């Protein structure tokens, strides 16, 4: 009886030490779930989800504090991907946050720009180039289309322009959708 108790206690002690050592040795820095969520989010850093950027929203989702349907730029595809990752139900986009729109780019009307630098301060990805009292311009390759620069502009010289499709960026249309249309017409 006593041997058994001793043996079990000893085993428990050994495994406890082993687990304790492993948890220190193999400690994962950061939150892997939040990282995975952050990878799915479109990184527009627009704040439409009410969080200051994609990373804070990802952390909030990982903590289970908010729903997965608060990202209008990502739209349906992002919600689907998040639902797959977290194994939860797909929900329609929360209209409070905004609606899914085609991708746009900010364009500064350079004739009207007064060089106030307010948009530069607003841009979350440093995609606007310029200096005080110098004309500003958008680095179109870096612009995420978050619209955060539009509101601060005192002279309303920033327009959000839909990105044009050219033969290189063109995508084959979804045949399933075409099938549906043909079926409806019949």
């Amino acid at each position, binding site marked *: 009886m006593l041997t058994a108790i001793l043996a079990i206690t000893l085993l428990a002690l050994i495994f406890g030490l082993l687990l304790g050592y492993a948890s220190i040795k193999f400690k994962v820095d950061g939150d892997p779930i939040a990282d995975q969520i952050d990878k799915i989010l*479109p*990184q527009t*850093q627009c704040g439409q989800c009410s969080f200051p950027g994609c990373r804070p929203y990802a952390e909030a989702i990982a903590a289970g504090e908010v729903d997965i349907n608060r990202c209008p730029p990502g739209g349906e595809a992002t919600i689907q991907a998040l639902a797959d990752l977290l194994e939860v139900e797909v929900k329609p986009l929360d209209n409070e946050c905004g609606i899914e729109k085609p991708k746009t780019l900010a364009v500064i009307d350079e004739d009207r720009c007064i060089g106030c630098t307010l948009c530069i301060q607003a841009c979350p*990805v440093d995609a606007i180039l310029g200096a005080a009292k110098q004309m500003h311009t958008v680095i179109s390759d870096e612009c*995420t289309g978050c619209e955060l620069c539009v509101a601060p502009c005192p002279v309303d010289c920033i327009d959000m322009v839909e990105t044009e499709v050219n033969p290189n960026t063109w995508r*084959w*249309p979804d045949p*399933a959708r075409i099938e549906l249309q043909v*079926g409806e017409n019949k």
Partner: protein
Amino acid sequence: MTSKLSSFPGGLKLAGHKKLSTQTAIQKPPLSKKLILPLQQHIGAASSPIVEVGDKVLKGQKIARADGHVSVYLHAPSSGTVSAIDDHAIPHPSGLSALCITIETDGEDRWIERKPIPDFTAVSEHEIRQLIREAGIVGLGGAGFPSYIKLNPGIHHHVETLIINGVECEPYITCDDMLMRERSSEILDGLEIMQYALGVKRCVIAIEDNKPEALSAMELALASRTFKNTSIVVIPTRYPAGSEKQLIQVITGKEVPTKGLAIDLGIICHNVGTTYAIGRTINHGEPLISRIVTVTGKHVNKAGNFETLLGTPMHELLAFCETERKADDPFILGGPMMGYNLSGDHLPVTKTANCILVGVDDAAPATTPMPCIRCGDCATACPAGLLPQQLYWHARAKDLEKTQEYNLFDCIECGCCSYVCPSKIPLVHYFRFAKTETMNQQLETEKSDIARVRHENRLARQEAEKQEKEERQRQRKLALAASKAAKEKKAAAAASSEPESEEQ
């Protein structure tokens, strides 16, 4: 070559319909008043214009230069004046426009000074490749990949075999067939140059057995030369034997690995049209300014092959062939299997335009597809050994990751699966859709990764600035406190010394 031929899985026996366009010799259509030249007629980066509106250009003059490694030059196909550099509709499945150089021809067709190379062995392989690049030569079989790159195996690869592709397996198309019949000797000229540039040991010219005239013409031409290790191999007619990977499998029995290239097997494949163009460039100093286009179909009265200047509007070519195109006729660029519908006929002939089809009975009908019955015919027909049915389900569900697991990008879009599908499901359309979606998604991921890094850098910078500011404020506070203390000390000292002075 006497060794036994191998074969590829699947494939189809299709009615050729080739006789329609092989009854007459290659003709030259009249010079068009306007030539429209898209800056992107090849895979890779679009060329950049080096002429301006109003410039006079001569036939064969460079009008756009290569932009980057995977790019080629573009030339004026005839003499005249550059009348516009703007967006114009181009032949593309999207029906969209792209930047084009328009030349108003003057009718003189005056050549720029041509510099033929009398003895190509006197120049280095590198120079040969540069000349081919500057001549704007791209794969004329349909893909349009810059040929000079495919003549440069690099230091990591060794090319054993050069395959000249004269298979032309797709129905209706006969431009390579007619070229081999009429210009076999000049094809061999080009072949000699390619052998020199690649330094290959063995060369195989592949021709399908439904082209006996082309075969005998090539054999005759080869017999009159002293070519070492070059042979003609007759391939049994089966679609898509002319596809690079399938052709390699037929000739060598080896399969090009997934995500690999023919070069990984020590093989390079070039089309006969490309070979001919290379011969013209080196031996005659002529850049790629024209190509042979098959114009055929039910409603073409004078079907045939036409040596057409690049940029010639299709409607003029069709008029020359006395075509009666009806509005609902299938109007296809390429063959009935792999070609795509054109949005109109005011489009220019480009380097990759091998065939214009007007009205065919066996083109994919625009009927509503029936549900998949899981018969598996598509898997039997697939020449790449894929599972089209599985790919279809995943592409339909937009599960792009799953389509990757089933090797979507090994699909050569030959159209065999769609052809045999009893439910008439446009399978290839699904695969093209899934491919462009996947590529787009990868691009988006790359972009969002960059945005994340930029945002993080910004946050880090703001944090650093904040700390710097706080540090400065702290320093200033300290300095202020120190000076205050010093002042107080001074004042105290003064105060303590004052009574002393008073005392004195």
